[in-house]
Each structure stands twice: as C-alpha cells, then as structure tokens.
C-alpha cells in the first residue's frame, strides 16, 4: 500500500499536517517544542534502540515458533500453542507490560521483555497463517520431486508465505515502536518520557514534542517494512507487483 499511495490520501495527509502546523503556530507551541530538540534527538535514539532490540528478538523467536506450529509432527502441540497465541493477542498491551513488571520489576529488562512479548504474537500468527496458506499440492509436488523437508521449507514454503510473514512483521514493528512510550512507565527509555511528563506537568509543548515524533516513527517503520515487502517478495507471489 505504501508503494501505491493514492493521490487523494497523500493530499489529505499533507492537508492534515499543514492544519496541525498552523494550529501549533497559532498556539505559539512551535518555539516551545523547538526548545526540546536536544531531548528529542537523544530520546529518539533510545526509542529506536529499544524498538530494534525487542523487534529483532521478536522476529528471531517468532518466525521459528510460527514454523514449528505448522510442522506435521507437532500438529497437536501446534494447535494448542496456536490457541494460546490467539488468546495472547487479545490481552491488552498495558496488561502485558504490567505482567512483565511483576516478573522483572522496574527497569530495562521488563521493558524489553514486555515489548518483545507483544511484538512476538503477530509475527507468530502471521508466520503460521502464511505457511498454512501455502497450497498443499505445492508441498506434495515438491516432495514428489524429491526435495528434502528443509529444501521444501526454504525453496517452496517460506518464499510463498513471505508476503504474509512480512505483513505480520510490519504490523508487529509498528505496534512495537508505538508501545515503546508505554514501556517508559516500567523503566524503558524513549519518547514516553516527554509524553508522560508533559501530561503530568500539563505542558502541551513537551507532550507534543514526544507525541509527534512517536507517531512519525510508527508511520515511518510501517512504510519502510512496506517497501521491504515490495522489494523482497518474489515477483511471482507478490500481489503488489
């Protein structure tokens, strides 16, 4: 979708951005926000580090679990685990972070654990869904031609599921980046510091200095993974091209 941005939406987005800018100017908030520039740069870096670490962990753990869920010999275990994962996605993010804190206490480990856990679930779900959607007859044909299970996975199943898997990663990373501010509450760094302090101090400029970059980061990550999806997925199975 990122690659084929409809012109109307692009226009609407620009109009919205302009309206926001005009509003901020009218309120005299822009200069005040500019005074937080140093903090923003520093916090964005911490924000991205936290998102990158938890995102990488979630991908590294989530894809293998998703693969495992769909293997024939773990079918019974897979069905049960899939139920658990499904239930997991229903649990609100704040609850997951709260649970992380009850285990690890206040600090970076809780933040990373909580973020990883909630980023993990969409990745697992989409990996499994993508692999399940690969038509059985392709696997049958691959087996009939003498591919070994590993070859079937790498040459047939994963390439054909890649689009859906990346869609999961895309959603998951956008959620990840967007939840980092909440992780501040349980001891993580990032832009949450400006947002929550801004709310507490009733300081709109500070709040916005945190909120606007947070929104932009989430949209940016979503867009970047969208580009990767366009570029990485083989042309024969890529609905975007």
């Amino acid at each position, binding site marked *: *979708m990122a690659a084929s*941005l*409809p012109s*109307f*939406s692009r226009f*609407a*987005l620009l109009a919205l951005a302009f309206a*926001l800018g005009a*509003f901020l100017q009218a*309120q005299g*908030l822009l200069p005040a926000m500019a005074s937080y520039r140093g903090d923003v740069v520093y916090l964005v870096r911490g924000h991205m580090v936290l998102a990158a670490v938890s995102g990488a962990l979630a991908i590294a753990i989530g894809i293998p679990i998703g693969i495992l869920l769909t293997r024939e010999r773990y079918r019974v275990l897979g069905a049960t685990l899939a139920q658990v994962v499904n*239930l997991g996605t*229903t*649990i*609100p*993010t*704040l*609850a*997951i*972070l*709260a*649970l992380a*804190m*009850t285990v690890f*206490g*206040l600090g970076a480990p809780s933040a990373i654990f909580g973020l990883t856990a909630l980023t993990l679930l969409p990745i697992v779900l989409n990996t499994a869904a993508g692999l399940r959607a690969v038509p059985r007859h392709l696997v049958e044909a691959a087996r009939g031609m003498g591919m070994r299970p590993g070859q079937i996975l790498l040459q047939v199943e994963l390439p054909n599921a890649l689009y859906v898997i990346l869609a999961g990663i895309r959603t998951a990373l*956008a959620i990840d*980046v*967007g*939840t980092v*501010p*909440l992780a501040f*509450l*349980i001891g993580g760094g990032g832009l*949450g510091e400006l*947002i*929550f302090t*801004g*709310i507490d101090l*009733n300081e*709109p400029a500070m*709040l*916005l200095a*945190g*909120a*606007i970059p*947070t*929104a932009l980061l*989430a*949209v940016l990550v*979503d867009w970047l993974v969208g580009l990767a999806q366009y570029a990485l997925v083989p042309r024969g199975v890529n609905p975007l091209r």
Partner: protein
Amino acid sequence: METLAFMVANWSVILARTLEHLSLVGASIAIAICTAVPIGIAITPNPRAANAVLYAASIMITVPSIALFGLLIPVLSLIGQGIGYLPALVALVLYAQLPIIRNTYAAITNVEPALREAARGMGMTTFQRLREVEIPIALPVIVSGVRNAVVLNIAVAAIATYIGAGGLGTFISRGISQTDVRQLLTGAFSVSVLAIAADLALLGAQRLLTSPGLRT
C-alpha cells in the same frame, strides 16, 4: 494469594472500574458503528475512493495510542476538554474505524455478483438490495470487524487512564507508580478477562447473527 485477597477486598472498586471501562468502550463502538458501517457501504461502488479511505484509516490506526492522545489533548483543550473522557472517546472512535470499515467493505464486495444480479432482476431498489440481501449476508463479517475493534479499544482504553479517563487501567498505573504487585496483577488480570470475555461474547453474537442458510 495476596492479590486474591486484594481483589476480594476491593471487588466493588473493580466493578466500578469495569463499568467505567465498558461505558467508554461501548460509547466509542456505538459511535464508530454509526460512522464506519455507512462509510464501508458507501465506498463499495468506487474502488478508488475505497482505497483512499482504507489507506487513511490504516494510517490512523498506525499512529500509536499514546501519541494520538498526545495530539488530541492540546486540540481539545481549546474547548476545555484536554484531559479526561473526551480525548479518550475521540481516539477510540478513530481507532475503531479501520476494522469496521475494512470488514464492511470486504463483506459487501464479496457478496456474489450473481446474487446481486438476481436481486436486481427481481426489481429490488439499491436500498432494498442492501437490506434484503447484501447486509444479511455480510453481517457476520461486519460483526467480526466490530469484535476486532472492541478488543482493540479495551486495550487502548486501559492506556487512557493516563489521560484521566479512569477505567481498569487505573489499577495498573497505580501499581506501577506504587510498585504494588497486587494492583498490577489485579489490573492486568481484570482487563485481560474483560477483553477475552468481550471477544468470546461477540464471537457468539457473530454465530447467532449468521443466517442459518449460511452456517457451515
């Protein structure tokens, strides 16, 4: 164990917070259904408009909830409603748009062309066709969109406690600030149960609303 004792001792507070939570989510979903379903139907004849609307709604849902609250507070404080119920409600209504619009649009466009053709051939007007054929067939999918929106909004409403909207998130925010595991667990547990219960209840509704002729 301690947590259990805390829950038993505070059951009336938990109940009040749950009702607060539900009323916020309920109001937002009621408004969202009134906007998103008509939008979803209105964009079906025009794929270009549909793309634009779905794109805008997907950007909307990508904006993190806490950032959206942050953006709404200064705007709504112009009318004296910067903190509290209103920004939370507005954010929840906005978030619920994408799941409901997307499912409505998909469900209506997926109605078999032959059925539409048959309805037209029998002399139904556009409105009659919607009421008699398209909406009844699309209803389960629309309800499943509402279900997604409800689960999403229960989660976002928990975060809304930080902008003064109350709800079950209050237990979590207090648990964090007071490093009180009892409150943390109470909040996490009750809000999770609420989400799961709402999910199951709406799944049941989805089954009930499926016309017997369409059940598999």
